[in-house]
């Protein structure tokens, strides 16, 4: 396709090193919560908070190392979609808590 010729295969989509670092970091961030849950060394609140922190870090790592959030010709698109994505993620998490916690007590 004519439109394709202009930007075929010249972009760098990250180096091997970046992917390996991202992969290792995301595995580590998966193992830590697993260990915390399997061997309860922290209090319940501390465990929940640390899982949440790991989740947020995982999110950032996925965006930076695999989704290449920093690259691209028009970062404006990236920022727009990222904001919409964050709004929706916030809605899912906060909305669920807001709706469901009422029935907990």
């Amino acid at each position, binding site marked *: *396709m*004519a*439109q*394709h*010729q202009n930007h075929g295969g010249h972009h760098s989509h990250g180096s091997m090193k970046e992917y390996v670092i991202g992969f290792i970091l995301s595995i580590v961030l998966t193992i830590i919560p697993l260990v915390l849950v399997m061997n309860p060394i922290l209090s319940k609140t501390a465990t929940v908070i640390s899982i949440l922190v790991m989740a947020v870090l995982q999110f950032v790592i996925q965006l930076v190392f695999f989704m290449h959030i920093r690259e691209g010709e028009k970062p404006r*698109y990236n920022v727009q979609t990222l904001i*919409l*994505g964050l*709004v*929706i993620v916030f*809605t*899912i998490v906060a*909305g*669920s808590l*807001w*709706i*469901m916690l*009422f*029935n907990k007590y």
Partner: protein
Amino acid sequence: MWENIKDFASTFFVTGDPLIYGADVSIVLTIIAILFVLTKYKKWGWLWREWLTTVDHKRIGIMYLIASLLMLFRGGVDALLMRVQLAFPNVEFLHSDHYNAIFTTHGTIMILFMAMPMMFALFNMVVPLQLGARDVAYPFLNALSFWLFMLGAMLFNLSFVIGGSPDAGWLSYPPLSQNEFSPGPGQNFYIWGIQISGIGSLATGINFIVTILKMRAPGMKLSKMPLFSWSVLSSCIMIIFAFPILTVTLALLFLDRFAGAHFFTMDGGGNPMMYLNLIWMWGHPEVYIVVVPAFGIFSEIVATFSRKKIFGYKSMVWAMMIIAVVSFFTWAHHFFTMGTSASVIAFFAISTMIVGIPTGVKVFNWLFTMYRGRISFKQPMLWTIAFIPCFVIGGATGVMLAVAPADYQYHNSYFLVAHFHQVLIGGVVFGYLAGIYYWWPKLFGFKLDEKLGKWGFWFWNIGFYVCFMPQYALGFMGMTRRYYTYGWDRGWADLNLVSTVGAFMMGIGFIFQVWQIAYSIKHGERDTTGDPWNGRTLEWSIPSPAPFYNFAVVPQVKELDDWWETKEAKANGTYKEQPAKLEPIHMPKNSGIPFIMSNFWFLVGFGFTFGWVWMAVIGFIGVFACMWARSFQYDTDYYVPVEEVRRTEASLGRVV
């Protein structure tokens, strides 16, 4: 040994119901007939080269269309079976378990395996042509999406003759869908059928967003893009945010069932209501995912058949984009009766009413477009005009349901059933049918017969009101959904009978449409101009059926409704003919990997459905092998030489 086989077969195959045996026989006969015809006329190679491995968006669109019409038939038969059961009090046509399975498969098939693929059929058939592109952004992924959908749908439909159908409602709420209450493979079929086709839907969403943002013809700014493409963009944005929620929710349900987790169980810290909360975060955007493209279709049709520019183009775009966002903030209205705080209910009641506003804006825009237009009542326009009152009533009853205190009365009654059928049939089905009639000549090169189409149209329309208006009343009379039978003393008999008559009228309408297609293949009016409706957008500037590369020369866009403006300029004599320069056309090569990989996904799904992990493992190995093979395939494209383009264009009556 023999005993073992007999034992296995009696649980593996669904037995004991004459309706199922009848279906078994017809399935086997159909398969034998297909195999026979393919072998006799030596069509296996043709099937593989031209269809199973194709990455051409138009052919993928046609396959989606065929699949969705088959699913419309299956879902429609389910509906008629239910209406027969409910036609009179105390009918013993279906027993309760069978009835449960049928309303479950009816709902799931109509939304996920009929509406979604019909929508993707229209995306594929139209969007690249409307944008002036040669294909979608990722043709290989597009083929993969189709085959994942197809194999997922087949897996789901298999449950009908093997293993037993899911019967916990179309959204499969726990605790009913958990192992203790639904032990068999039925729910697993549901989970894996939807998961596999869901991957395809997500990929299609990404594919079309990229196509729309990156592949528009030079000069087509977003502000000059046709409204159908805008509606696809809106719908795809919702797809990429909503479908992951569905995937995760069903994966958690599967973990509950397969690995004994406690996400949605009654005990062990699980919470079944969380499932409702999550599934409706997908479920509510889902109804906008399917209806917004219908709005886009109506916008194209109203402008074309009123011979006028669409009224309020910008407000149309804004309305669709606002719907794409606001639709994510209304989900809790599906379970007001669960009981939660007053502020939650107030928030979701108001957001539900707000999401109706942009839709209202669109209805007025369509009416103003028609105002003082020269309307011609061709089939696409008929369906559009029928849609407006139908959808307005459906929307109004929707706002009634949004009034939370009143919802406690309407909830899960036939009032609700009538409401969502009104918006889904009156909005989605009418819209897609209008779109199919409208774009049919572009794909197939002939129009669908007007006379038979009008018979179909009137049967559908009158049948619709006869079927669903009584259901509003039945809802008020206390009939709740999913009753499989009722007594004379309830006083529901007459209205139910009327409703059943209406359902059969819609069935007759569908038969007329099938007849219409069969008739038109031979006798339909051929489209020799490529522009049978005096259209406005780029797809009408090329011959019908569109050549495989779509545009011999990539068009230069200057205006909204560019093709209309070009025709006007030609008529006024102000059109400057630009010397067309043919260049070799860069096209993607066909690939068998999407088809093979989807079959491995089918193995994964089938294995997990019956708890045969070995089979799922084989499936996963196959899936990864396909990904591996594709990763190292470098020879994926080719150039169509200028000579071939010239020859193809000449054979279609165009001189370039």
